[in-house]
């Protein structure tokens, strides 16, 4: 067994990188010889997808020579983050993919290393949250749901991702905006989007909160009805009002971006910002963003750092109100 499996293991192991390297086209003078891409999540998830999309677009635009990926998953990025901070300190060609989930996870777990310890480079994409009900629900409009919440928030069960995540925080902010106690939220946490969707379309809960893309297909098939979206603007092509339009002053979105390690100098930081700016302008990146139905919210450098600081403060306040921080 050993000789056979070892040989096959070697063949299998050598196949993947070979195939991945197939059309390596030669372009003049890439911006970086190689980039170390650190994904603090498992392969196949949202952050991983963002990282691989950066790789694909950078390669076809000739921006980067090659990529090395490392995935360290766990606890909303809180397992990978300390590793990135310690091992990549001062490296000018290392990037970490992260986002709003990481902000909340750092606060909830009282992690010693948080998103504040890395260098913000650029925010790339975001996705607004949506509030949905089963197609069979008696709640036809947001007002119906709002009235039910005001009558007794505990009687309106709302499904979403893990406690303290973006979905839970949005519900907390909603209740606060409706002058209710966020701690009265009847929040039902599910692990993984699939279980939450099944509970919503099966009518097991009154409503559900998630990113738009998770629910889009269920809405298109008539199994779910969207009542409101949490972004600043309506989602293009989706005829659902924002919470602001409905008189509820709440906005929230799940954003994703890239960060550099701590301890890099101003020149190294500027080089990475230039790279991300070039990536964002490339047609290859625009094509991927359109194909995945992401919304492009590019914001680089200090402007991003300022927004991030505000986001952290807001999240902290919202989590305190839910009794999670």
């Amino acid at each position, binding site marked *: *067994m*050993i000789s056979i*499996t*070892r040989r096959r*293991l070697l063949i*299998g192991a050598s196949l*993947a990188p070979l*195939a*991945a390297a*197939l059309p390596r086209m030669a372009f003049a003078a890439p911006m970086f010889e190689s980039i170390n891409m650190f994904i603090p999540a498992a*392969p*196949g*998830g949202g952050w*991983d*997808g963002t990282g*691989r999309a950066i*790789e694909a677009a950078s390669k076809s635009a000739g921006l980067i020579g090659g990529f090395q990926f*490392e995935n*360290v*998953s*766990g*606890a909303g990025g*809180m*397992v990978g983050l*300390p590793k990135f901070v310690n091992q990549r300190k001062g490296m000018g060609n290392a990037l970490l993919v992260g986002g709003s989930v990481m902000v909340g996870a750092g606060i*909830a*777990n009282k*992690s010693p290393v948080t998103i504040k310890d890395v260098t913000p480079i650029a925010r790339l994409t975001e996705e607004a949250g949506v509030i949905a009900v089963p197609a069979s629900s008696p709640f036809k409009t947001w007002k119906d749901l709002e009235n039910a919440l005001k009558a007794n928030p505990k*009687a309106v*069960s709302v499904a979403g991702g*893990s*406690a*303290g*995540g973006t979905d839970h925080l949005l519900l907390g902010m909603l209740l606060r905006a409706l002058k209710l106690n966020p701690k009265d939220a*009847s*929040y*039902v*946490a*599910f692990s993984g*989007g*699939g*279980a939450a*969707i*099944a*509970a919503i*379309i*099966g*009518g*097991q*809960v009154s409503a559900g909160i998630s990113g738009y*893309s998770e629910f*889009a*297909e*269920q809405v*298109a*098939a008539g*199994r779910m009805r969207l009542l409101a979206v949490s972004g600043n603007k309506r989602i293009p092509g989706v005829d659902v009002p924002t919470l602001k339009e409905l008189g509820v002053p709440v906005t929230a979105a799940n954003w994703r971006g890239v960060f550099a390690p701590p301890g890099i100098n101003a020149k190294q930081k500027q080089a990475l910002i230039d790279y991300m700016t070039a990536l964002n302008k490339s047609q290859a990146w625009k094509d991927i963003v359109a*194909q*995945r139905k992401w919304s492009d919210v590019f914001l680089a450098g200090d402007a991003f750092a300022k927004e991030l600081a505000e986001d952290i403060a807001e999240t902290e306040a919202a989590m305190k109100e839910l009794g*999670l921080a």
Partner: protein
Amino acid sequence: MSTFDALMGGFATALQPGILLYGVGGCFLGTLVGVLPGIGPALTIALLLPLTYKVPAAAMFVLFAGIYYGAMYGGSTTSILINAPGESATMVTAMEGNRMARRGRAGPALATAAIGSFVAGTIGTIALTFFAPWVVEIALAFGPAEYAALSVLALVAVSSVLGNSTLRGLIALAVGLLLGFVGVDLQTGQPRLTFGAAELLDGVEVTVVLVGIFAVGEALFLAWQGHFADGEVMKLSGSVKLSREDWKRSWKPWLRGAALGFPFGALPAGGSELPTLLSYYAEKRLSKHPEEFGKGAIEGVAGPEAANNASAAGVLMPLLTLGIPTSATAAVILSAFQGYGIQPGPLLFTQQSGLVWTLIASLYIGNVILLLLNLPLVGLWVKLLYIPSQWLYAGILVISTVAVYGAGNSLFDVGMLFAFGVLGFAMRRLDIPAAPLIVGMILGPLLEQSMRQALVISQGDWGTFASRPLSASLLAIAAALLVMPRLVSMLRKAPRQESPASDARQ
């Protein structure tokens, strides 16, 4: 007939030489990752995801289908031969399968697993082809209350894997339940039993515990025993083929396993472990040879292995009809769809019908390829047992370590692997069964979380478990299974106690 026509269209695409090659490659790779402890289909497919930028969608999904089914076939091999299940779904197969191997019947055990996988995989795929929309509607009727009831039912079935000593079995179960609680609590976001280690926030990975306790524990136990060279582990005797008697005892468990496994795959939680456990329980109860269980009963291999493969087909139902992933592998396949700009959902069958039917057709083809691949391999696999065990287990140790490190890039996981290896060794020494521990780890969180979800929905009213018809029926079945055997034996015993008295009177 349109379903049939569409399926034929799928076959036409999947049988194109260029695409079929991907299918064969997938089956081969899948069997391999199934055989290697600690490497599963989810990880393999995830590692191949970057290919979505290079390979056409149809070929990619045929490859994935091959890996997915292949891993289910291959997983039983290491379970049976060396008692080192690589996935929790094949753990139950290991219980009887390895006993059979120890009695020199490794060949028939592997054969009944392979043929059972084919039978159940094909039944599951046929059911997926024709009944998917209906089964999924039933699955949607399962809410948190029903999952809690289902977990209780499964806990009753745990009694069948407790082993000779109930107390030892319950100790293992309790340790498993405790391990299941480690990590951030889903409903409150608070860490439990993590002792400040960030690596434990997501809980203890079942695969690490499984490979640690079984594969590493077994290796340590053999090292402790010290006598390697005499080939004490297992001797081969008899045919590697199934005898007429084996066929007779296998076909019903295959069908029952398929019937149990398929619907469970469709449930948005529940996975493949519950049906294998329930199948084992059912076979032990229904067998004409209950005394053979624990010593290598072929029914105990045939049933759970069939259930395992049928549930693999069932998992694809909610994925293809609703876009809902119900297992780690399904979640990775989902992200592959997204890599091609396809949003899997209720409209997938209409918008991407060509692709979906190619995928389904390739499942039929994959099953045939895997049977052809695996039956001849039975003869080869059993020869592995001629390898001196120090070589074999050294290899297993290396592969387990590499697999666990590779899955998470974490030395912490490797440390845990060996810690659980030591625990597995201690349990072997003290004759504590390992299966209840793994079952506890899987059932504990499912029961706890779904119970709390149900109570949030019902605003704290415990009556919800009794007032919902589905949940109430499941609980009633659990109660009946628990009480009936005792009641029956009490009723049987009662007249026996009377008879000596009546004898005396005469």
